[in-house]
């Protein structure tokens, strides 16, 4: 499993040529979380097996691994989605990344700092200022108003109430709940409650924003609306995001990159397009088979070297999705030019290629 995920990892940064250069914000290497009677024993088993014990080796000892040898690098400003069905280990992984659960072994680096070496006090400081988390069932404090909930993380840092409430009010406005500041969570709809959760997690202006299935408990229509708002917020705030979901469509809509988990393993990490075009195994292929390819395929994948002296009907960016330029391409008599941001001609996309993708989607 591990070997298979390597090329995917290597392939992931490939299309970065004209993205701004990004640095790694959060990374983990060889991260394990093993549940069972005895954690120390689990550590031994992992060490004895060269850091990669098979399932049998663990089960013999009555242990189960919820996260197996996870390696990820989340880059500054990206939306990194961890996708998996229930029991795949995604919730455990995000809890290891936030140290809500102590990983059994491995290393965890945040902002160049080894999180596993932090003292409790240091960890409290990091969480107070650099991390924010949104929970699946909102985790609002029932005895506080909307304002009180959002101001809570600020108040426990010792920020005076007036200032905390003023900052909280700004966040509430940001998520579109102004006017409901004095309401209690019990009087809000699910969508509104999660807006409070989002406002609260952003109140401390964290750099790393963790979202644990934030929209899974919401109705499909509300979910869609919240996804749009989430993207809007991210455009404005540009946080580094780890987002957990079990919904592949959600993952594709939101993600810059997706890590797919399956029974504790990270099977593949890549852009939505990577997963669809180059699935590493049948499990990933199964997931992506229902995805409309027009939504994920980019001009870069579809283009071929430009013909000498060809004339073009228009220009598109290399990372434009087929769905965005399909109408333009189908109507035009000439192919479209794919140009980098600096205007350099990278290739051309033919009408037939677009039609083929669209036809496949049917």
């Amino acid at each position, binding site marked *: 499993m591990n070997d298979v995920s390597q090329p995917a990892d290597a392939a992931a940064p490939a299309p970065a040529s004209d993205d701004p250069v990004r640095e790694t914000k959060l990374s983990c290497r060889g991260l394990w979380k093993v549940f069972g009677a005895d954690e120390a024993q689990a550590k031994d088993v992992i060490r004895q097996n060269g850091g990669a014990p098979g399932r049998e080796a663990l089960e013999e000892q009555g242990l189960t691994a919820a996260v197996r040898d996870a390696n990820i690098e989340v880059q500054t400003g990206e939306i990194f989605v961890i996708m998996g069905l229930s029991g795949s280990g995604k919730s455990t992984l995000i*809890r290891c990344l*936030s140290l*809500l659960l102590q990983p059994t072994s491995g290393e965890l680096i945040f902002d160049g700092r080894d999180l596993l070496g932090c003292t409790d006090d240091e960890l*409290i*400081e*990091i*969480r*107070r*200022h650099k*991390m*924010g*988390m949104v*929970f*699946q*069932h*909102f*985790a609002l*404090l*029932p*005895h*506080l108003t909307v304002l009180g909930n959002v101001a*809570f*993380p600020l108040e*426990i*840092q010792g920020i005076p109430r007036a200032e905390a409430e003023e900052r909280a009010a700004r966040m509430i406005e940001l998520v579109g709940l102004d006017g409901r500041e*004095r309401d*209690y969570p*019990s*009087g809000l709809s699910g969508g509104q409650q999660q807006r409070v959760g989002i406002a609260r997690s952003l109140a*401390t202006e964290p750099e790393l924003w*963790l979202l644990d299935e934030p929209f899974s408990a919401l109705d499909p229509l509300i979910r869609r609306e919240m996804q749009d708002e989430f993207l809007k917020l991210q455009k404005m705030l540009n946080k580094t995001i780890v987002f957990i979901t079990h919904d592949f469509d959600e993952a594709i809509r939101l993600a810059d990159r997706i890590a797919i988990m399956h029974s504790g393993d990270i099977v593949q990490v890549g852009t939505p397009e990577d997963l669809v075009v180059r699935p590493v195994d049948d499990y990933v292929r199964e997931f992506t088979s229902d995805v409309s390819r027009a939504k994920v395929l980019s001009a870069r994948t579809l283009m071929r070297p430009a013909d000498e002296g060809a004339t073009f009907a228009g220009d598109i960016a290399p990372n434009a999705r087929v769905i965005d330029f399909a109408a333009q391409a189908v109507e035009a008599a000439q192919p479209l030019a794919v140009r980098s941001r600096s205007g350099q001609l990278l290739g051309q996309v033919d009408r037939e290629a677009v039609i083929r993708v669209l036809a496949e989607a049917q």
Partner: protein
Amino acid sequence: MSLTDSDTRTLPTGIAPIRIVWVATLAALVLLWMLAQNVEWIADPESVVTIPLAGWISDAVKWLANDLTFGLFTFKDLTRALAWLLEIPLTVFITLLSSGAEIPLGGESSLTLPPIPWFSILLAVTWLCWVWGGRRLLLLAAASLVYLVVFGQWESAMVTLSSILVAVPVGVAGGMALGIWAYRSERVSRGLTPVLDLMQTVPIFAYLVPVLVLFGFGPVSAMIATVIYAMPPMVRVTMMALRGVSPELLEFGRMAGCTRRQMLWRILLPSARPSLMIGVNQVIMLSLNMVIIASMIGAGGLGYDVLASLRRLEIGDGLQAGLAITLLAILIDRMSQAYIAYRESPTATRRAQGVNNWAMIGGLVLVSYVVGFVFPSLSTYPEALTLDTSPFWDELVRLINVHLYTYLDAVKNTLLIYLLVPVKRFMLDVPWLAVTLLLGVVGWRLGGLRMALVVAAMAAFIALTGNWQKAMVSVYLCGISVIIASLIGIGWGLIAARSERAYKIAVTSVDTLQTLPSFVYLIPVVMLFQVGDFSAMIAIVLYALAPAVRYTAHGLRRIPSETLEAGRMSGCRPRQMLWRVRLPLALPEIALGVNQTIMMALSMLVITALVGTSDLGQEVYIALTRSSVGHGIVAGVCVAFIGMIADRLITAWVARRKKQFRIN
């Protein structure tokens, strides 16, 4: 039952050994019984050995009270300091509410400050009741307080209220502190749970004896006993409430960077508050329940009035004071529940918005206090206008005894001759070894070897500490009462489960029954049947009825409607629905109700010692009057063990049954 059958069918190898066990047990029982005629030690545990545990405990407590020293201070100093600490707030409340104060102004002159007059308290309480609970609660409060004034119970009631006002916060704070400690440390939790089990099953009287020896006779020791009695549920509720806080909230707290202290005070306790309030309510009710009993070691007030008149068999007086306690209990209970609902209601729907409640009350009390101070004649309710109904009640009792005596006595004697006495004889006749063996085998079948050993050891403890005969009397009295209470209770529960309205009526009546202090049940029973086992039985049945009703109704109502529809679609007649679908599914819940009924019966059993039983309860009561700590505690622990044996066996059975049904 059919499930058990199918189980044995799928496990054919299991049949034979199980049957053999039961046959062998039966044979052993019969054999033991026959042997008991000739072999003394089978019949009479005292011929084996009697462990002088009671003496040891008495000596130990004496040593605690007289000789134990921590160097700088002795144990006695410690208890004295504790008592002194509790006496301060108690004195403050009594001064404010009941006695008033005299402030010396130098020389001969002094300023007499009267207590807060009755009408100030009436005004303040009714105001609060209106804000919290609306007009219905207001009327209840006004009626109850007016009763206290008009029937001359005011002063006693205020003494009782003072001790409640101190005992409840102390009990709540202590219970919460222990609960938090147990929540944080698995080890403390594991150590505390059996202690709580024991404390909740040891009869109240047994607490009184050591408290009496260590703290002496007086209102403060009565209050300490009250706190000890009322605290265990608060510990339990706190542990459960904190464990019930959603794990996501805890994760949020950690992600927000809460310190341990912030986690406790700003996340755990506030979000557990609704559950914690249930514990507070329990502490209040148990404290009120203790009012009469605590008067045995020196509490004054209404409890003392009831106890004194009960001892003199002045039914009328006892009834009046008993009613006063009952009204006080119901009022405080409803007020605390209304307050919980009020706290949880959205701000916009509350009454008297924009008014600062506590300022309003302070103002009301202050103004009316000044009025009372200026016109002292107003502040005491005129003696001439008080009513006294006790002659009426005494006359009623006399009339009942004159005219109905024959019938009542016939009922009583019939039941005594054909039910109570034969069962009592039988229980006394069964050899102790046979009972212990049977309990062991049942325990083994239900919960394995460990359970068998625990249960048999408890039975042996009762036998070998010299309490076997008395324990059997307790078992007989309690057993009969529980069976009767369960039959009535389950019947009532069946009716209550039929409609929403019947359910509401049942729940309200049962709630009210449970609000009454256990002592109050004795008054009418003694009125009608004099003292003795029969009166005791009736009082126990009345007191222990509530849980059987509640659990039965609840168990029947929580059967999934799909299951009932499946039953109807299979063509069940109403009778078949009841016997083949509803009752079997509700049985585990009903069993839990019966379990609670047993616990309540045992706690009442001890109180019925006052009406002349001859069981373990009497033993505890006698120990109390003689300040014999060891006897009291050992007999109390024996009562607790009877309860725990029943509890362990029933709980194990329920767990097995639920596992079969795969319900949680």
